[in-house]
């Protein structure tokens, strides 16, 4: 079996365990924690795709995430039913990404400025929403609430039936299914012609264009796909906590997404999930046990990983596995 097929089977089995196995063994309280990790893992995947495969260092992935969360909150408060708000929470970030992508890629903005622009967009949202504390800042019946955020956001419900809420531990299974769908969807996309050309742009943009591919259009579409996934993650996050505040647009949060990916390994999808869950779990555990300050420990880990395992964990284990199989092969022959 090739390594690719082996990885596909492993991830297939793991997702079945995640969807059906975990809820059977884990306590309700932990399941609620896990649901948050899953929402964040979807966010991590969105940037892993855009940055790791499209080569687009988007520092503002949290802008799409936060826009998804706020869109869901505003829409569901006004509508009372969650199906359309979920779709809007995906659609609006996609539109934002198409507009941003048009100006950045068609305007031939260089990579560094691209990171700066996307970060600035995120911070603009942060201050804009932060300044919306007054009574007058409301959309329909939804008050934006400034830095206090929007509390009591209604949960996701079974489509068409607002009284059948999917909340607390019940949100776990749909979230896990969505994570699996996003993961395998991205794998399929990367294996398609679009995915191959996207990676070729990352490898050598000038050559790709000289072969007749429109890199501007392909990168814009990739950014929009990533934004839609980030928006979905934002929707889940908002529905999970029944709350959203401008911290989703903050510098700390947007930097964290990048950290998840660097820890797990840039250019892998599995690494994005692993890095995200690992860091989130550690942060939660440190917060509960109060052994040490969360930020100091995470910062130290980040520095250590960049220095010692610059390619991230998943690529490191893959190399280790290759070396071991080769050794065994040599010993056997």
């Amino acid at each position: 079996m090739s390594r690719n097929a082996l990885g596909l089977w492993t991830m297939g089995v793991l997702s079945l365990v995640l969807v059906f196995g975990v809820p059977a063994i884990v306590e309700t309280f932990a399941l609620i924690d896990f649901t948050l990790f899953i929402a964040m893992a979807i966010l991590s995947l969105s940037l892993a795709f855009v940055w790791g495969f499209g080569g687009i260092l988007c520092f503002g992935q949290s802008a799409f995430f936060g826009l998804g969360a706020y869109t869901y909150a505003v829409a569901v408060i006004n509508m009372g039913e969650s199906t359309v708000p979920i779709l809007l929470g995906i659609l609006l970030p996609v539109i934002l990404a198409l507009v941003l992508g048009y100006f950045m890629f068609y305007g031939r903005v260089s990579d560094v400025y691209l990171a700066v622009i996307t970060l600035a967009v995120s911070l603009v949202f942060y201050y804009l929403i932060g300044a919306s504390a007054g009574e007058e800042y409301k959309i329909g019946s939804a008050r934006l609430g400034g830095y206090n955020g929007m509390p009591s956001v209604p949960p996701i419900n079974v489509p068409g039936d607002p009284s059948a809420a999917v909340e607390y531990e019940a949100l776990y299974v749909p979230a896990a299914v969505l994570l699996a769908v996003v993961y395998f969807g991205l794998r399929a996309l990367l294996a398609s012609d679009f995915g191959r050309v996207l990676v070729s742009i990352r490898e050598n943009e000038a050559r790709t264009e000289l072969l007749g591919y429109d890199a501007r259009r392909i990168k814009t579409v990739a950014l929009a796909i990533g934004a839609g996934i980030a928006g979905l993650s934002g929707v889940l996050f908002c529905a999970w906590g029944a709350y959203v505040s401008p911290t989703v647009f903050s510098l700390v949060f947007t930097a964290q997404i990048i950290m998840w990916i660097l820890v797990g390994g840039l250019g892998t999808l599995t690494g994005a999930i692993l890095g995200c869950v690992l860091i989130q779990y550690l942060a939660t555990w440190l917060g509960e046990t109060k052994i040490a300050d969360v930020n100091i420990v995470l910062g130290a880990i980040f520095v250590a990983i960049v220095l010692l395992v610059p390619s991230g964990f998943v690529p490191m284990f893959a190399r280790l596995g290759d070396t071991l199989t080769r050794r065994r092969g040599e010993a056997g022959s």
Partner: protein
Amino acid sequence: MTGPPLLETRGLTMRFGGVTAVAGADFTLGPGELRCLIGPNGAGKSTFFKCLTGQLRPTEGEILFDGESLVGEEPHAIARRGISIKTQVPSLFDGLSVAENLRLAAARTRNRAETRAAVDEIVGLVGLADRADSIASQLPHGQRQWLELGLVLACDPRLMLLDEPTAGMTKQEVARTAGIIREIGRDRAMIVVEHDMQFIQMIAHRVTVFHQGRILAEDTMDNILADERVRDVYLGKQAGAGRERGDA
């Protein structure tokens, strides 16, 4: 020449600040013609190519391909019209295998089965059939040049621009490259920038000499070699450089 030209430039000019790299070049290429472009370093040959492929937007002048203007078109749009370039330093997808490189180039205009057939054919044509699974970055320099030749060919262009296709090659490799170019040049137009005179004599019918961004001469190889002005700016300079080395 019979019929309308495939490619025509009129007064093509490219200035970078105070430097004029191409200064009003009037160039014409017939359909299916193979032309060699020579000239000393800095004569504007590579800049001329970059204007033709849309990597640079000319300051002034007109480029007509098949009678239609190319000025202001994006590189990918020009590639789609049928102009394909092998750059001076091989530009490949270094992390991908030889076959994957070729497949990317071939897949734009072909379905899966056609792509596979095209890759199989081209990999043999450029002499890399036994290296199809090698990663591009691990190929020796000469084979990288051939792979890029393959990429250009896989686009199935009407006009191929080859910028120093034999740079850094051994004598045997140069001869083999000449064979490949003669083979693929049968049914497509080609402009080849080269410094290697022996190589040019192997492939060329007509030669255009660039000097200081202008076209200095255009003739058969034998007449070019006999041209006094060409000797002065190009061949003479080489001879001069040889004398300097001799003096030292």
